[in-house]
């Protein structure tokens, strides 16, 4: 039955679920009227500049502040000894470790924080930082994580050298952080011992950095009179930030206000609590003046929140037709000098055990060994949902390697191993319950769209002519939306999230969340969810996040958790309001609640469509005395949502590349991305997220890397070398979708922002390796820069012209 024009019009007026509503944030951003951290200017504000270590590993013999302190405009030079009496020279990390706020007797990575100069302006602060004299005694550094646990390896963390444990189980070496495992080792080994086919490959996810356009920074402002501490900060987790500050400083949490304003991209770089923030807070408490600290680009790339550095070994066991019987994955994780990245207490290797991917793998085992090295701390960041990028990269590379070994086409081997549609919800052999999926359907749709058969034919012709053309496929399953509190907590705080909605008498509303947008468009999409649930126009629903004084507590935005957790809270809070509204409507229409049905923006009496009450009408009545017996005024609700499970978005991607064997340059000719994130709230925003995530995947696959020399010195930590693709390098993206709702999410939505990154990276790698597959190549590590690809050509002897 076609909907009547009236219904269509009312529906459209809401601008609710499924509409490509324009982003409400953009009006201020395109006018340059956003308020980013460096836009905050407070009266009397001083600036902090960091003095950093030139060495990766060294003992500090002396620090002389005199020359810096003598400079006009310099207020203070803070070193570890100044923080020691307050007990703030070390701080707990959200990874369960401790981290030096300012280097305490030794430095453990190049550019580690050694002192902070506080001065009247940033120029004076920078000049004075240069005048702080630090004498070092250099120590041998560990850069290669494979050497971290050697018998004669220098001890990086003397402060915990004799500790048997740093939060995550027994340690076997002073440079060992933890060993974590999942699955059944004995059963897996047994399958491998008897398997018809096995494959094994070493696969690296290099150290990269998300490099958001806005670097990290804060303005800390302590009011000596009221004892109130206000911190404006680029934090994706304002509430956790406040809790950690309260634990650290002893200031009651009620006297701390954390405000995350507009954030110029986070990508996990802005989850941890960094030394710069803590020192700024201390300096503000000491001086009673606001202190601003802003990272430079080089500081950002070199010291805060890198991603990956995961050194994997993948193994698959299969029958002769390529049906996978067992999976065995190892990873050596380089966490740098402190274990400081975000991690759930019980999941120190994050969600790595999603590494069985989209496949029905009966037996599996995986293990991660994490070690300290003389590099900056971090590892979990960059659209990764806690090590999912690493896990998916391994399985999506390994299944291609298996396909080569058994001589089955890479699309066909996926079909043979996919979890079938009737198997959902599907329990993986590593302990996850995948909520929903439709993998065959997605892959077939994509292969048809790109004319896969035609591409294979073209490739065969090109190969016959000595040209290099590669076709990459990735059929990934993501795991996002941390997460059930029974599985995930940080520092004991469960990873629920929250929404509070208040409807005003005239039918507009305000909703506040514990999440924190950094470009995801929450102000737009959350309003759409509430609009559809409440029948109020999204344009009249104000969304707020990031001010801990007003927003309800939540674990912030990372790991694609806002829609799965915050979005669910929004829908359920709205439903509470609607339930109350229904009671009011029944009262007004003098019928029973069960006699009412909901239609877009109103309740109507069943069988009597002229008898209605719109939500707007009810909103007004809710603020009068004309209410059902015993009912209080007001139309508001709050919801603290603890999801029953994570959500599992998936996708099927195809990438086609052409490689110039004389220069090693790769041209991405085509990239087709089908994403299934369940119910689609705002298709335009989804597409934007896919474009962004694919572009970052492209960057990682083809150029990004934080390189070091053997002494731990940075070799390329500015944008001169670090690859940020411009529109010129970025391929054209073709996007597509299928819709398989999550059965346990109130509106069936899953996360999406990380999928293109997680699924895109292996797709690019698979395409590049495929270009060489006919020459016997099974794997090439990223980044696939022209230089590195050329080295592959050279190793194969195809880099030279016939005339040489």
């Amino acid at each position, binding site marked *: 039955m076609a909907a009547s024009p009236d219904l269509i019009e009312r529906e459209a007026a809401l601008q609710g679920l499924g509409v490509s509503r324009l982003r409400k944030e953009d009006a201020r951003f395109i006018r340059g009227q956003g308020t980013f951290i460096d836009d905050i200017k407070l009266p009397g504000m001083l600036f902090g500049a960091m003095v950093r270590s030139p060495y990766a590993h060294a003992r500090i013999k002396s620090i002389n502040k005199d020359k810096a302190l003598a400079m006009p405009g310099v207020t203070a030079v803070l070193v570890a000894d100044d923080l020691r009496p307050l007990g703030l020279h070390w701080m707990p990390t959200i990874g369960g470790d401790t981290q030096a706020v300012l280097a305490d007797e030794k430095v453990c990575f190049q550019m580690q924080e050694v002192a902070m100069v506080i001065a009247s302006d*940033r*120029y004076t602060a*920078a*000049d004075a930082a*240069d005048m702080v004299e630090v004498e070092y005694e250099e120590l041998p550094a560990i850069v290669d994580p494979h050497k971290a646990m050697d018998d004669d390896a220098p001890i990086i963390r003397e402060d915990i050298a004799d500790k048997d444990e740093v939060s995550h189980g027994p340690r076997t070496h002073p440079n060992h952080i933890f060993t974590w495992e999942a699955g059944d080792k004995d059963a897996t080994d047994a399958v491998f011992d008897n398997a018809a086919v096995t494959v094994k490959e070493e696969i690296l996810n290099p150290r990269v950095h998300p490099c958001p356009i806005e670097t990290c920074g804060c303005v800390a402002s302590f009011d000596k009179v009221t004892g109130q501490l206000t911190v404006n900060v680029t934090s994706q987790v304002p509430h956790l930030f406040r809790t950690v500050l309260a634990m650290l400083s002893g200031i009651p949490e009620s006297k701390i206000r954390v405000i995350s304003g507009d954030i110029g991209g986070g990508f996990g770089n802005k989850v941890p609590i960094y030394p710069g923030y803590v020192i700024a807070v201390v300096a503000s408490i000491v001086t009673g003046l606001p202190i601003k600290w802003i990272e*430079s*680009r*080089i500081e950002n790339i070199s010291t805060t929140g890198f991603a990956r550095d995961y050194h994997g070994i993948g193994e698959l066991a299969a029958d002769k037709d390529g049906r996978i019987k067992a999976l065995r994955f190892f990873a050596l994780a380089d966490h740098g000098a402190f274990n400081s990245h975000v991690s759930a207490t019980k999941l120190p290797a994050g969600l790595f055990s999603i590494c069985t991917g989209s496949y029905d793998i009966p037996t599996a085992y995986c293990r991660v060994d994490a070690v300290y090295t003389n590099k900056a701390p971090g590892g979990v960041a960059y659209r990764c949902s806690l090590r999912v990028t690493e896990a998916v990269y391994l399985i999506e590379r390994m299944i291609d390697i298996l396909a080569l070994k058994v001589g089955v086409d890479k699309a066909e081997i996926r079909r043979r191993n996919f979890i079938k549609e009737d198997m959902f919800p599907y329990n993986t052999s590593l302990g996850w319950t995948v909520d929903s999926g439709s993998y065959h359907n997605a892959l077939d749709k994509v292969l048809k769209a790109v004319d896969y058969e035609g591409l294979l034919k073209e490739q065969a012709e090109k190969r016959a002519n000595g040209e290099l053309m590669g076709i990459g496929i990735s059929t990934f399953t993501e795991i996002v939306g941390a997460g059930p509190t029974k599985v995930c907590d940080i520092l004991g705080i469960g990873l629920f999230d929250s929404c509070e909605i208040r409807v005003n008498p005239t039918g507009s509303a305000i909703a506040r969340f514990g999440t924190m947008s950094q470009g995801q468009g929450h102000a737009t999409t959350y309003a759409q969810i509430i609009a559809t649930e409440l029948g109020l126009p999204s344009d009249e629903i104000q969304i707020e996040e990031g001010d801990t004084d007003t927003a309800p507590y939540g674990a912030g935005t990372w790991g694609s958790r806002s829609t799965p957790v915050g979005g669910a809270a929004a829908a359920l809070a709205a439903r509470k309001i609607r339930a109350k509204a229904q009671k009011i409507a029944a009262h007004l229409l003098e019928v029973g609640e069960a006699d009412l049905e909901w239609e877009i923006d109103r309740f109507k009496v069943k069988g009597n469509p002229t008898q209605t009450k719109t939500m707007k009408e009810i909103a007004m009545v809710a603020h009068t005395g004309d209410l059902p017996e015993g009912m209080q005024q007001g139309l508001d609700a709050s919801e603290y949502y603890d999801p029953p499970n994570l959500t599992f978005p998936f996708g099927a991607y195809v990438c086609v590349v052409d490689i110039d064997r*004389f*220069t*090693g*340059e790769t041209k991405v000719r085509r990239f087709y991305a089908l994403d299934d994130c369940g119910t689609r709230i705002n298709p335009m925003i989804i597409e934007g997220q896919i474009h962004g995530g694919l572009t970052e995947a492209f960057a990682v696959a083809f*150029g990004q890397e934080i*390189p070091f020399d053997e002494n731990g010195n940075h*070799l*390329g930590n500015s944008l*001169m*070398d670090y*690859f940020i*693709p*411009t529109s*010129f*390098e970025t391929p054209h993206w073709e996007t597509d979708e299928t819709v398989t709702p999550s059965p346990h999410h109130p509106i069936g939505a899953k996360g999406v922002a990380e999928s293109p990154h997680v699924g895109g990276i292996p797709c690019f790698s698979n395409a590049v390796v495929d270009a060489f597959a006919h020459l016997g190549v099974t794997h090439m590590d990223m980044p696939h*820069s*022209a*230089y590195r690809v*050329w*080295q592959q050509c050279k190793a194969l002897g195809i*880099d030279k*012209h016939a*005339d*040489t």
Partner: protein
Amino acid sequence: MIPRSFEYHAPQSVSEAIELLQKYGDTARLLAGGHSLIPMMKIRFAEPEHLVDLGKVAELRGIREQGKELRIGAMTTENDLIWSTLVQQKCPLLVEAARLIGDPQVRYKGTLGGDISHGDPGNDHPAIMLALGASFVLVGSNGERVVAADDFFVDTYVTALEPDEVLTEIRVPVLAKNTGWCYAKLKRKIGDFATAAAAVVLTMKGDTVKEVAIALTNAGATAFRAREAEDSLRGKKFDDAAIAEAARLVMSICDPAEDLRGDVEYKTAMTGEMTRRALRTARDRAI
């Protein structure tokens, strides 16, 4: 990322600029587009106490044709070159190279004079100037002299410029008939310097190479000419074997510095590859 403090001077004329250079000696640096100097100051690699900005010196701007030469003011920006119909018609190689420099911001600010004076082997114009047989007008307290591009580039960041001299004008011969050109540049991304690049100016007579110049970017301590390769081509038939031989000779004299763009072997190979490509394109354009 914040430079040390400095004093800023904005002379109105070349002579005023020279006076300032004399007065402050080696504590002064000329400022043109600032896109090499200021990044170096921000990382405190360069710490001049006095910046003498040439931005207000009107006599350093402008492009004109005089006889068989283009005369280009040192403060002409990359975009000025790209948009000049005169340069497009008379010396398209310069346009091709300028378009491959940096990104739009760099091309709005960076100047031809600054690119040459900086003495960076990774800059593109030095090789272009060598291939074109350009000459430079240098004005100092002792008056004016004209130095050929071949005699200008001494070492990395070292040129024939005396401390109190200003490069005022670049003189570029207008391309002869039957002359093709090409600048082939391999780079990692927009805004990057060359991994390797070759500039070729080639005059044909029928199938034979009448005259050729090959100059290389980022393949040694300065940009330089590949004279043996040029000799191997001159007077010879232009065919695959000749190209291969020229590329081989080019590679035999490369001495690039290893960096993240590649090791010596890769950069050498890429210089050979860029030479091949530049030669072929130049030949196609010469006919």
